[in-house]
């Protein structure tokens, strides 16, 4: 573990990634100082508007990165969007990893028909193109939540709202947040399969190792063998996938927002901000800033996670060792 950290910090690739992530973390924490919300703001995540003119305004002293359609301040959106991106990326990654780990390890440990059924289910979920499935599920969930009474699904949304936004699970979910949660739920539902497959493969190998057999021979229970002996050996591949996937999930959510299915209009979310640019395609040469700045934020954020994931894989996969260090 120490060795891994050392390798991560001496490798140009991962160092770039880690520094980028640190920078984003600082921006996220310092958001209230970097872009102070107006005094009467109800929700700091709603981007303040300077007037209601439709045409985007170029960067100026008052708005360093300009404003987008409807005079939403881009700097404010980019800064507070960092928080949104972290929340979405981290929560989705954690949820998918937990689901995938459970399904993969249960299947691998018990084998037989349980494994067969679980693997078929995994394959069925993989039979859908990811983005299409996410779009579909988001729009179905929005239809259901739009009715106001969603039964057990509402419980799920409250739980996720508690984890993501720290809101009180006893109260109704804020409609603005609910729309974001539908997108997240959709991505989670179709995002856990890689973990399940990788974990299953790993445990299949480790299960036959002597120490696992020995543990079973002295009568250690299933659950204990699984959690104490098998899972720790499968942690590293999960870390690699998690790092790579965080970027991918942020991209997918940004795509949902861009299509108008993710965050609500005016919410500090990078994908949603770029959504505004769709109405200005013929004059993009003049309004370049409405795509470039939020776009740059997404690219750098995703790049950071990919760089770390890539370096982790090089370090943790022994076959890749000695292949030069990163770039």
């Amino acid at each position, binding site marked *: 573990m120490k060795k891994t950290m050392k390798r991560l910090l001496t490798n140009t690739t991962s160092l770039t990634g880690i520094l980028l992530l640190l920078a984003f973390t600082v921006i996220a924490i310092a958001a209230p100082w970097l872009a102070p919300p107006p005094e009467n703001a109800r929700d700091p995540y709603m981007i303040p508007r300077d007037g209601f003119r439709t045409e985007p305004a170029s960067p100026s002293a008052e708005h360093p990165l300009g404003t987008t359609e409807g005079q939403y301040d881009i700097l404010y959106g980019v800064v507070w969007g960092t928080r949104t991106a972290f929340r979405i990326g981290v929560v989705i990654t954690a949820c998918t990893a937990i689901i995938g780990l459970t399904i993969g390890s249960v299947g691998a440990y018990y084998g037989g028909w349980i494994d067969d059924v679980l693997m*078929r*289910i995994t*394959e*069925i*979920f993989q*039979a*859908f*193109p*990811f*983005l*299409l*499935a996410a*779009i*579909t*599920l*988001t*729009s*179905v969930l*929005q*239809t*259901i939540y*739009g*009715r106001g009474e969603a039964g057990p*699904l509402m419980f799920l949304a409250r739980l996720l709202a508690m984890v993501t936004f720290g809101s009180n699970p006893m109260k109704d979910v804020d409609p603005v947040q609910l729309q974001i949660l539908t997108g997240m739920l959709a991505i989670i539902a179709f995002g856990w399969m890689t973990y399940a497959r990788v974990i299953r493969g790993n445990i299949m190998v480790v299960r036959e190792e002597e120490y696992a057999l020995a543990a079973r021979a002295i009568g250690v229970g299933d659950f204990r063998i699984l959690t104490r002996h098998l899972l720790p050996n499968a942690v590293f591949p999960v870390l690699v996938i998690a790092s790579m996937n965080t*970027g991918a999930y942020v*991209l997918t959510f*940004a*795509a949902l927002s*861009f*299509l*108008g*299915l993710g965050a609500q209009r005016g919410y500090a979310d990078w*994908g949603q901000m*770029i959504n505004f*640019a*769709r109405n200005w*395609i*013929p*004059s*993009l*040469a*003049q309004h*370049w800033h409405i*795509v*470039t700045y939020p*776009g740059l934020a*997404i*690219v*750098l954020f*995703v*790049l950071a996670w*990919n*760089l770390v994931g*890539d370096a982790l894989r090089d370090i943790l996969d022994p076959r890749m060792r000695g*292949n*030069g260090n990163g*770039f």
Partner: protein
Amino acid sequence: MTTYIIRRLLILPVIVVGVTMLIFALLSMLTPYERASLYVSDVPKRQGSIEGIIEKYGLNDPVYVQYWHWMVGRKDPDTGEIRGGILRGELGFSQTLGGPVLEVLRRRLPATAELAVWAAVPMIGMGILLGVLSAVHHNRLVDQILRVFSIVGWSIPTFVFGLIVLMVFYAKLGWFPPGRLSNWASQVVQADGFRQYTHLHTLDALLNVRFDVFLDALRHLVLPITTLAYLNWAYLLRVTRSSMLDVLRQEYLVTARSKGLLERIVIMRHALPNALIPIITVGGLILVGLMNGVVITETIFNYPGMGSFLAQAALSLDAISVLGVTLFSSLILVLGNLVVDVFYGFVDPRIRLE
């Protein structure tokens, strides 16, 4: 070999049935009222008449009964005509575009197919070429530049890339416009003298000997193709590179070189064919990438295909259309993956022994 294919074929129905069940599970979360567009084109707003429709098509029946009807169709008790039934190709009615979902798909599919076919060649060709270059120059400047290109490329969202190429090549330079055809060209295509054999505009234009239309269609395709392809370049580069690096370490290459073969021949004839085997397996993944990419690409470039239909329907919460498109594309994906697997079995003898 045969057992391998048979085993693949045996799993196929399980997956296909599973896919339909998952789609139906989503459908059954909708209200009977929302499900009515599965069977009738215009759902009446009046309370009384909708009750009749729900009754008529059994939209309050137990789930398994409804699933069966959704699969094979349900007989209208009044007229005796069978309506719905995905096995009969009836995916319900689209409220967004009006008309049966399958009809909309049939109208939109050629545009998407044209885009995909045109994108396939530069996408796969360039991806493999870059991967080989990167592996052959392992750890030298070319390799390092290409690796940066690949990881950065992987981090750019399709819509940002698409908007930036539009910004440069349409808004600034005015070279490549969005859409599918210019006004004059679409008038030519719609006119009586122009026969639409395939509904792929580029191909039809050639068959009708209208090179101006062909060029116009191509001009509209350049940017969407680039957008679709760049995503997969990054991916293919990576796969080709690592598999090529594996092969380059093999001893038979030393033999080939020691025979005095040219380095170019060693690479192209001895190493590449073996390195291409893993690339076939990612074929399925590329297909996925294409289908995901098409939604965003078509939306940005205002290109009237299946993907932009999905985006439009999803935005107006037209669940029936959205589920129809998703069902359709996941079936394509399942079949595509089967083809890839079988092909893989043919190419790589080691697989058959499993």
